[in-house]
């Protein structure tokens, strides 16, 4: 099996290299070379799929002759986590990277098989260059070959770290990796467009969906990571400005900027330089994220020790940055747009501001993340920046971002007159004002000006989007009749990209409300209680009812039962801490439970208004002391000194017999384990009656649930925006670039019509805009006709 995998990996590397070479050979647009290179890319994807399947089968069958399986799984690892164990390893995550890239590249090339004839060869070369890099790493870098074997095969593996055994583990890393990988595709097409000087919006249109998919994956991966941290790691937070978190957030932010500014390029032909810079930035930051996870350069909870591939990834980042910069500089003349932004109150102007804010936010996070290195460079001292520093800059930027998120959708493209601006802004501003005054009077939001500002702007943004939906649906109903609900559905499904985007905005606004409320108005206390004692936290009576304890073959669990009285209702919460026996050891002492991993089971009562969160730190000093005493007693017992009880003598005799005769070994081990388990259970029982105080971390987190809800709303919005439109799904005939251009222009005319009907554009503005758009459409039609003739003649 391992040799099959190795062979496929080697072939995959050859496939990637040859696909790139063939594509470059056919760079003049020769059909058969492009087709051939595309097919080789499909083959590359198939080969890597075989590699992944081989690894997964090895995990499923407990084939410990695979080094990767032996290191990351064991007989006891639950089946579900065996499948996910692949990407807990460095070699496995490299394979995942390459595999996802192979699938993404195939999909992108399939989608563009009849288009972009000049750009595709270069894009193929870039994608396969990156793919060859990652496959080559697995083949040639030390210690990262996923098909390394062990001979003879050990009987059992070390096992998957219990902290990683969480449902999120199944999806969180693949989501982030898919997000990182998806940024490769727009990057590759941008490079192709730069090389061939085909710098109109066509490469943007062809890869927009991939950029959006990558953005959604990355965002969802971040959300899952935050959720995991909140519910699983016993510190109660969801974001810590940890370097690796930041590393995933940065490409997401720049990707957000990119998704907005490409609209300006599509509609107005502007911001071309900016867009190629953003796409290069997103890809480089994604590589940097991959690098940071795999390197010990910065202190992080995620910095996974031994690192063998870091320097190579760093070299790739350098090549990408230097190469792209040189390419962009050499194409500056082609990138320059003759058009200017007409007015500061237009959608494109707001997009530009939002872009600057997002890039500013990224710059702040980048500086803070890499500050330890910067500081060492200038002062010779490693120094780091903590969360308060990040908050100081990111809070105002995020608040401004929400404000502009609210303004953007209300404005039309090109220009808006003051009169219509006033009309559009009136209702959302009024709603936001009322909401702010109410919040300031009724709640204690007034004490936290930043939070209040965010709530006000979020209310404005939500009201604005609500108005968009309302006016759009009303306009649609005037045009085609039907019910309001029907009009709303038709509106969204006919303008998926626009209204899907608005739904994303709703999600982000809701999410930021949750973040602002839970970070500004949270009650966070550490209390130490004895069983039976109570304390009052944020108006709630919290009672430590009794300790709990449990022992099984995997872990020693010590916990607590709490009762919380919240005025009218009361509920019980259980929280405990599991001390895992070290993995990969056949039998240890009882105290060895406390040398292994430990993890907290959080007690969480989630609600729409607030979460009650608690985690216990049991005082196990007594338990540990008794465990040590028991171990010592056991030692004395089996050594058979004077006065040992007869049962002891039997066990001792058995152990000596097992030492002489390996056949008896397993029986002896089983005997000892059961004896130990019984002792451990007795020790656990003593904990139940121990009056030792336990320390509890208690957090009352207002509105935090809305953060998760907002995230899911945003994800739904993204899916709506990604979903192919009806015509395309049915498999429309061959689209030429001019056809695509024509379609885009028609869509723009329709958008303007809708904006006019919804009252966003005044009659006068609409007349000017419509005339401009129609003129542009006629030009495109002429061009299409010209191309058709050319095709027919040839």
């Amino acid at each position, binding site marked *: 099996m391992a040799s099959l995998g190795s062979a496929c990996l080697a072939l995959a590397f050859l496939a990637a290299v040859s696909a790139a070479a063939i594509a470059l050979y056919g760079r003049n647009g020769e059909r058969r070379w492009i087709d051939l290179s595309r097919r080789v890319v499909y083959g590359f994807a198939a080969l890597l799929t075989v590699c992944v399947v081989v690894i997964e089968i090895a995990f499923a069958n407990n084939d410990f002759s695979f080094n990767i399986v032996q290191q990351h799984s064991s007989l006891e690892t639950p089946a579900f986590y065996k499948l996910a164990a692949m990407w807990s390893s460095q070699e496995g995550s490299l394979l995942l990277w390459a595999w996802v890239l192979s699938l993404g590249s195939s999909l992108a090339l399939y989608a563009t098989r009849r288009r972009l004839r000049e750009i595709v060869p270069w894009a193929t070369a870039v994608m396969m260059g990156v793919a060859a890099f990652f496959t080559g790493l697995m083949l040639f870098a030390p210690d990262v070959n996923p098909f390394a074997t062990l001979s003879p095969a050990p009987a059992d593996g070390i096992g998957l770290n219990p902290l990683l055994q969480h449902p999120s583990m199944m999806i969180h890393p693949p989501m982030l990796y898919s997000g990182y990988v998806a940024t490769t595709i727009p990057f590759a097409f941008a490079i192709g467009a730069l090389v061939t000087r085909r710098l109109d919006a066509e490469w943007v249109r062809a890869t927009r969906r991939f950029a959006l998919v990558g953005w959604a994956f990355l965002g969802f991966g971040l959300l899952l990571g935050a959720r995991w941290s909140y519910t699983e790691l016993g510190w109660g937070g969801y974001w810590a400005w940890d370097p690796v978190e930041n590393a995933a957030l940065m490409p997401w932010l720049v990707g957000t900027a990119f998704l907005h500014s490409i609209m300006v390029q599509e509609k107005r032909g502007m911001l071309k330089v900016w867009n190629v810079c953003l796409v290069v930035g997103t890809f480089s930051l994604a590589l940097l994220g991959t690098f940071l996870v795999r390197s010990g350069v910065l202190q992080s909870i995620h910095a996974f020790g031994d690192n063998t591939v870091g320097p190579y990834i760093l070299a790739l980042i350098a090549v990408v940055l230097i190469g792209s910069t040189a390419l962009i500089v050499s194409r500056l003349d082609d990138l320059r747009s003759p058009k200017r932004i007409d007015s500061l109150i237009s959608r494109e102007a707001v997009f530009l501001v939002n872009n600057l804010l997002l890039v500013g936010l990224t710059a702040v996070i980048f500086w803070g993340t890499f500050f330890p290195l910067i500081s060492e460079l200038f002062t010779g001292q490693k*120094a780091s920046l903590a969360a308060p520093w990040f908050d100081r800059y990111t809070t105002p930027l995020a608040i401004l971002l929400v404000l502009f998120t609210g303004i953007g959708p209300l404005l039309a493209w090109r220009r808006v007159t003051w009169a219509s601006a006033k009309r559009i802004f009136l209702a959302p501003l009024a709603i936001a004002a009322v909401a702010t005054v109410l919040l300031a009077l009724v709640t204690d939001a007034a004490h936290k000006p930043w939070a209040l500002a965010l709530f006000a702007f979020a209310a404005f943004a939500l009201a604005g989007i609500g108005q968009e939906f309302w006016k759009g649906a009303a306009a649609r109903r005037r045009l085609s009749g039907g019910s309001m609900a029907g009009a709303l559905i038709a509106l969204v499904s006919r303008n998926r990209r626009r209204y899907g985007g608005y739904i994303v905005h709703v999600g982000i606004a809701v999410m930021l409300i949750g973040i602002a409320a839970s970070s500004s108005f949270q009650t966070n206390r550490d209390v130490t209680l004895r069983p039976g004692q109570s304390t009052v936290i944020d108006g709630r009576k919290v009672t430590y009812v009794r300790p709990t304890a449990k022992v099984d073959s995997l872990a020693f669990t010590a916990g607590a039962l709490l009762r919380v009285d919240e005025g009218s209702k009361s509920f019980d919460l259980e929280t405990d801490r599991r001390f895992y026996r070290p993995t990969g050891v056949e039998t240890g002492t009882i105290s060895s439970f406390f040398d292994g991993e430990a993890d907290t089971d959080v007690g969480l009562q989630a609600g729409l208004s607030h979460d009650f969160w608690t985690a216990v730190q049991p005082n196990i000093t007594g338990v540990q002391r008794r465990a040590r005493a028991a171990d010592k007693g056991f030692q004395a017992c089996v050594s058979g000194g004077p006065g040992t009880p007869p049962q002891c003598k039997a066990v001792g005799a058995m152990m000596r017999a097992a030492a002489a005769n390996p056949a008896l070994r397993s029986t002896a081990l089983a005997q000892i384990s059961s004896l130990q388990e019984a002792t451990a259970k007795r020790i656990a029982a003593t904990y139940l009656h121990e009056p030792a105080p336990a320390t509890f971390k208690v957090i009352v987190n207002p509105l935090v649930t809305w953060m998760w809800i907002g995230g899911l709303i945003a994800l739904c919005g993204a899916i709506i925006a990604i979903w192919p439109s009806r015509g395309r799904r049915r498999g429309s005939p061959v689209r030429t670039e001019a056809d695509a251009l024509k379609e885009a222009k028609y869509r723009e005319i329709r958008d303007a019509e809708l904006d006019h009907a919804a009252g966003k554009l005044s009659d006068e503005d609409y007349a000017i805009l419509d005339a401009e758009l129609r003129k542009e459409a006629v030009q495109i039609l002429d061009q299409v006709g010209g191309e058709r003739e050319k095709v027919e003649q040839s």
Partner: protein
Amino acid sequence: MDPQRKRKIRLVVALSVAVLLSVALIYTSFTASTQAKEPSELLAAAPGTSYDMTGKVVPGSIQHQGHGIAFMVKDRDGSGRSLPVTYSGAVPDPFRGGREIVLTGEMEGGTFVGEPETLVTKCPSKFTTKSDG
């Protein structure tokens, strides 16, 4: 005002705002940062200054003490004398003997006193099997 001039003014304003902001960013980052030091360097450090201590927890040294814990740390490469540390507050799940930690705090009478909520323990990953044993 002719548009050319207007655009130039806008550009100058935007650039100066950007420059001002980045100066603020750089200045605050140098003043707000805490220096990272290893336990052996901290043994001689002056009290009253906040440091980020990065070190390795000495196995078997963790003890419950009042509301918190007390333990010893050594330099990451395991060399040097060990430094006594006290910490009260939440302890992350991966915390245990032999783990690398980062903790913010000050020296008080030969002991490093950690600030609550600042204890970071490096994620135990199967990459580190060599050092984890």
